[in-house]
């Protein structure tokens, strides 16, 4: 059963719709949402509703740092994030906030570990920026596969036979073999706020039977999304990030 992996949705409803449609067309039957459902974007309630619907049908959902901050009333990392978190908290109902609060930090299912940041210390929200950090996460996960997000780029870390970990930058729409005799940490990119200069939404499909993952970039109407962010009165910077994909 093909598993769709969506992370860092950031309240971007247009991008989420586009990715879900793209995944469904490619016969995805299971879904996992890897955190940061909200923050930055203008549609937190609608995005939570959509994710909650999938969760009710068995989708895995883990908590991201923005979700935790909204649920627990903490501040953001930077000004724009703080402002958007405050705005998000105001527009969400208690039920929405309760949903975010109820999310687990880490889920292990079969041979897959789902986590927003790193499996070794999910509550620290560390950015996986080195091979060493990836190795720690892979080893702490203790599963063949770890799927996460948080860094807003698509990267696949793999365990070499000599115990090192190396990164691979995938080519969109090109299947990558991920044989189970190695261990892997896939960062699936951001649905709602890509930052690699390409505004197209990012997600991935994992085919466990074929032991193969395909990373995708999906075009959606990001200009409309940016306009919504402006209309909501959120910081201009957040609209620009959506337009430029940075």
């Amino acid at each position: 059963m093909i598993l769709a992996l969506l992370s860092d949705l950031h309240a971007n409803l247009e991008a989420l719709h586009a990715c879900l449609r793209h995944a469904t067309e490619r016969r995805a039957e299971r879904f996992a949402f890897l955190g940061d459902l909200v923050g930055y974007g203008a549609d937190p309630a609608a995005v939570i509703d959509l994710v909650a619907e999938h969760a009710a049908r068995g989708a895995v959902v883990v908590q991201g740092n923005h979700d935790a901050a909204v649920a627990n009333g903490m501040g953001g990392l930077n000004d724009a994030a703080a402002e958007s978190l405050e705005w998000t908290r105001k527009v969400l109902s208690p039920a929405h906030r309760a949903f975010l609060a109820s999310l687990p930090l880490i889920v292990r299912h079969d041979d897959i570990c789902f986590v927003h940041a790193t499996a070794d210390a999910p509550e620290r929200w560390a950015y996986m920026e080195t091979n060493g950090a990836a190795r720690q996460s892979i080893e702490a996960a203790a599963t063949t596969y770890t799927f996460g997000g948080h860094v807003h780029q698509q990267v696949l870390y793999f365990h070499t036979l000599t115990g090192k970990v190396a990164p691979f930058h995938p080519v969109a729409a090109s299947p990558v073999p991920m044989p189970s005799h190695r261990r892997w940490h896939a960062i699936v990119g951001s649905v709602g706020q890509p930052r690699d200069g390409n505004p197209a939404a990012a997600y991935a499909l994992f085919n466990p039977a074929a032991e193969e993952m395909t990373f995708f970039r999906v075009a959606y109407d990001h200009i409309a999304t940016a306009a919504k962010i402006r209309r909501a009165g959120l910081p201009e910077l957040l609209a620009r990030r959506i337009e430029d994909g940075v």
Partner: protein
Amino acid sequence: MAERIVPGSVIDGFVVGPHVHSGAMGNIFEVTKPGLDGPMIMKVPRVGPNEPSEGIISFETEATIVPALSSPHLPRFIAAGDLARTPYLVVEWIEGRSLEEVLAGGPLPPLEAARIGAALADALHSLHEQEAIHLDLKPANVILKDDGTVALIDFGFAHHARFPDLLAEETRFGAGSKAYVSPEQIQGTREDPRSDLFSLGVVLYEMVTGTFPFEPDTDVRNRLWLDPVPPAVLVPETPPWLQEVILRCLDPRAERRYQSAAHVAFDLRNPEQVVLTARARKSVRLGIMQHVRRFLHARRELGVRLRETNVPAGRPPIIMVAVDTAHPDDERQGAIQRATQQILSLSQEFRVVCVSVIRSVPLMDGAAESETASGIHFEHLVRLRHWVEPLRMPVQRISLHAIESENPAEALLEFANRNHVDLIVLGAPGPTRPDRSWWRSVASTVTANAKCSVHVVRVADRAVTSR
């Protein structure tokens, strides 16, 4: 623990025949399988607690890359076993003589070396076109076929841009074969196809002179600065153009070598076209200072050539690009994008119009916005906008059009004529896509009937990497 494979074993229907070769990576057997014609070999890695891990990683690398390749210059993939249970790889056995065997008889006449070199460059070009790099090119991995073409074998050290590079971090395994390895490979680079062109230079040098440009017994790093003895010093009948080609391949800086295998093949087949530099008639090794001076001199020359680029006169030309937004992940999209980028790099003045012809949408509205005629039309415009983004064009020089029509060729021609388009860029039909056979007539009809030039972008024939 893996099953033991010996002559007589039957593995997934393959009957294991005689043992052919035993190498660093493992064993090679002849195999047959009822229903499959043609000679085949099975590669089996050595697996076990006392076996070095190089073998299994090289095996895994080859088993990942070979199925993604398709070319008459490369062994055809037939089957692979599960790596955890029964690791094996079955590929076509390529009939011919290895270049190593041929060279055991001594160096070749220069023109014969050039002929084989051109065939070898063809094979490398085919590999590079498929986003792969061999990285262990040497005579033992070159098979000379009876028809005069060359095939490459042994991809245990190769790199493919679309797959994780399992050897990337395994620096202690060394890089390639000492006599042939490029300077940048020694420094850990595995992503530069020009590394294969350096190795090609070593093979050419060896074919002509019977010796190596850089002694394999010395420190491999000396090729970062050492100037090899010019081939004509060792073999005086070496033509200057051939020495030029060989020494250009052997330049320690990749940017000063040939930039593509296709160019090497062209020069080896068209000696009169080879631009002779001081390299061609060199009869002594250069000193370090001369080497530096030569580099600066070449850079000045290149600067002059760049300034001479012709800018077309008259009004800003209009380029129309036909984009198939119904198949956004099609391989041709990238090729068309690259072709467009190359055309745009010629001038700051071009205007680009991107046109997608979409099948007419029934007027009956669907339930969701995305299913209505206007929703579908808009969706294609969004995809076009996505498609042009990497071109980084200012908006005033670009326009996007989704045209509804049941006859794409007619729609494109009409649009081009009406808008005084100067150049149409569109994809060539692929040979193996029956579901897009309609596109074949589009490309040929447009080409035949356009009033302007048509640039038909062809993607090199290859297997798509989906399996």
